[in-house]
């Protein structure tokens, strides 16, 4: 009897875990329309101690490292700073709270996945400013978001779209690849925008995509890239930090084109095979918040992107022909001017 009970318990727990891993499904978001829903101006105009919560480690040459660089810029301005690495979903709220308790008056959650926990914490610490480098939780109406949080729903997908254009123009086999790390909204919109970008210039091309489920497993990243090459893929975009470094290694070894993520990753790949990198100026995005706080009325949502330089593309490698570069630059200009609008698409398939 006891045995059957414990088996049943195990089954229930397993199922619980599986549903927790699953996704929330499609949600129609009305981003772009409600820009700068500035909250009522509170006092919160002083900044002394700043802390960042990071989902990974500061040596990933990518997402986390750039946030660390942003924090260093702030430190250089004379502020006291702190950071915690590898803050997973079960620790988020506790880490947020402990920084608030320790007298930090500006706390940053680096990634959209911190939004929910931040909303729960922010209402308890109305004197603290919060900043999330991602979109606001989709299931919370904009007017119910705590007014002391700023969400930078930056348009990483614009960079991913441009990467798609580059990949679509550069592929010879007609097959390009996307390697992602997990299912947060930023990653999903990256993937969808990349596919859109490829299709816009090369409707015949096929996009093979793999989500590795980890941002830390460089060995798995390399095997993933190899599996793609076996299928004839000849350009790969990766957006998965350490796992992505394995992808770059495989491309470098096998002479396949790749596209870098967050920082200029061309130095990690030989022979100019890294065609370009989508750069996200996270350091400036983070350090510029200080001035915004001092201006008063901090909070709400912003949507930075290519037009204000938060998202940009690094210089093309010498493998990119001039006419391709020209075509890509024209598209970048169209996005900047607003002629071409890339709407983030968070759907999973």
């Amino acid at each position: 009897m006891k045995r059957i009970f414990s088996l049943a318990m195990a089954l229930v727990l397993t199922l619980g875990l599986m549903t927790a891993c699953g996704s929330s499904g499609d949600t129609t978001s009305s981003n772009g329309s409600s820009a700068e829903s500035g909250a009522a101006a509170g006092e919160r105009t002083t900044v002394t101690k700043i802390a960042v919560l990071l989902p990974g480690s500061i040596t990933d040459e990518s997402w986390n490292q750039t946030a660390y660089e942003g924090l260093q810029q702030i430190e250089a301005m004379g502020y006291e700073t702190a950071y915690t690495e590898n803050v997973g979903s079960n620790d988020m709220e506790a880490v947020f709270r402990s920084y608030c308790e320790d007298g930090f008056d500006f706390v940053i959650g680096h990634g959209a996945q911190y939004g929910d926990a931040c909303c729960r914490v922010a209402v308890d610490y109305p004197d603290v400013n919060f900043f999330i480098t991602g979109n606001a939780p989709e299931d919370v109406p904009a007017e119910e978001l705590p007014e002391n949080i700023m969400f930078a729903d930056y348009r990483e997908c614009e960079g991913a779209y441009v990467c798609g254009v580059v990949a679509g123009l550069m592929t010879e086999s007609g097959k390009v690849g996307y390697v992602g790390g997990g299912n947060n909204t930023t990653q999903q919109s990256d993937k969808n925008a990349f596919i859109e970008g490829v299709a816009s210039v090369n409707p015949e091309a096929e996009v093979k995509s793999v989500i590795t489920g980890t941002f830390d497993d460089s060995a798995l990243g390399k095997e993933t890239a190899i599996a793609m090459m076996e299928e004839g893929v000849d350009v790969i975009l990766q957006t998965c930090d350490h796992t992505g470094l394995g992808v770059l290694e495989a491309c470098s070894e096998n002479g396949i084109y790749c596209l870098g993520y967050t920082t200029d990753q061309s130095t990690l790949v030989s022979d100019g095979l890294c065609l370009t990198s989508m750069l996200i100026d996270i350091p400036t995005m983070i350090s510029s918040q200080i001035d915004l706080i001092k201006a008063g009325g901090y909070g709400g949502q912003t949507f930075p992107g290519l037009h204000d330089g938060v998202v940009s593309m690094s210089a093309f490698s010498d493998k990119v022909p001039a006419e391709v570069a020209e075509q890509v630059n024209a598209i970048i200009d169209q996005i900047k001017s607003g002629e071409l609008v890339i709407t983030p698409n968070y759907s999973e398939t």
Partner: protein
Amino acid sequence: MNETSLFSAAFLTALFSSGVRQSIPLIYGSVGDTVSERSGVMGISLEGEMLFGAFFAYLFALRSGSLWVGVLMGAVAGMLSSLIVAVWSVLFRQDQSIVGIMFNILATGFTNFLNRMIFGTSNANISIDTFQPIAIPGLSKIPVVGEIFFNQDILAYLSVVLAAAVFFVLRRTKLGLQLGAVGENPRAAQAAGIPVYRVRVLSYMFCGFAAGVAGASLTLSTVGTFTEAISAGRGFICLAIVILSRWNPLTALVASFGFGSIQALQIRLQVQGSALPYQVFVALPYLITVLVLALAGHNIRAPRELGVPFEKESR
């Protein structure tokens, strides 16, 4: 999904070669853990020892310019670090799971610390040339099978040698008998004059040695650089493989290959394109491991004193 390409010879060759490559760290880890579990000590800390191995293998290979120096130093690092766990759990008789978990946390932090101290926050562009595949003359010409099993790098071949050697020692030698006795009934073993503590510490150090090579295979034959937390849970998979293979090193070899191949398969299924959510694929290797354990694991019998600290004086 393109059905025809799924079963073509080229697809299967690529699939299982990737399976072999991905199983190498698992083979070293699970064979090492088999030895230590036979003597009654659980290798919970395998994950951390792999990390130590991976980091020091990379560091020494980079500084000395020799991959072999790297492998050796990785193994030594794994072995020395395992000594911490061995002393705590065998000699001081602390709970093996708690010591192991503590050690894994320490290993993550400590290797990150060393990595940043030595290379700063940027070592990804200091990559080294990895072990290259060696085609075995004759055998590698066999269609499909030759490419899969006889065109791998040296660490792959050595992993098979290690598994076979451990199998032989456990089954056919006095040492193997003593090891088993210590794990089954340490009191009787002690009465028979077998030094229980020494056997347990040494077998655990062997496990650390093997875990070190497992880590070295990640940095020196796969990635060519060290990235933080590179072991990515492989140490825990080894623990499951050891149970699945019923403490038999040759079965562990096969089970590791099975796990690696399913991992290779899930990537390829994603590449082929599917309407299923990616979580299904990512979970596939683990789901199948759980299923196999549930279906085939009804009469698994662990070494009797596995995980139980032995006290010389108690009765």
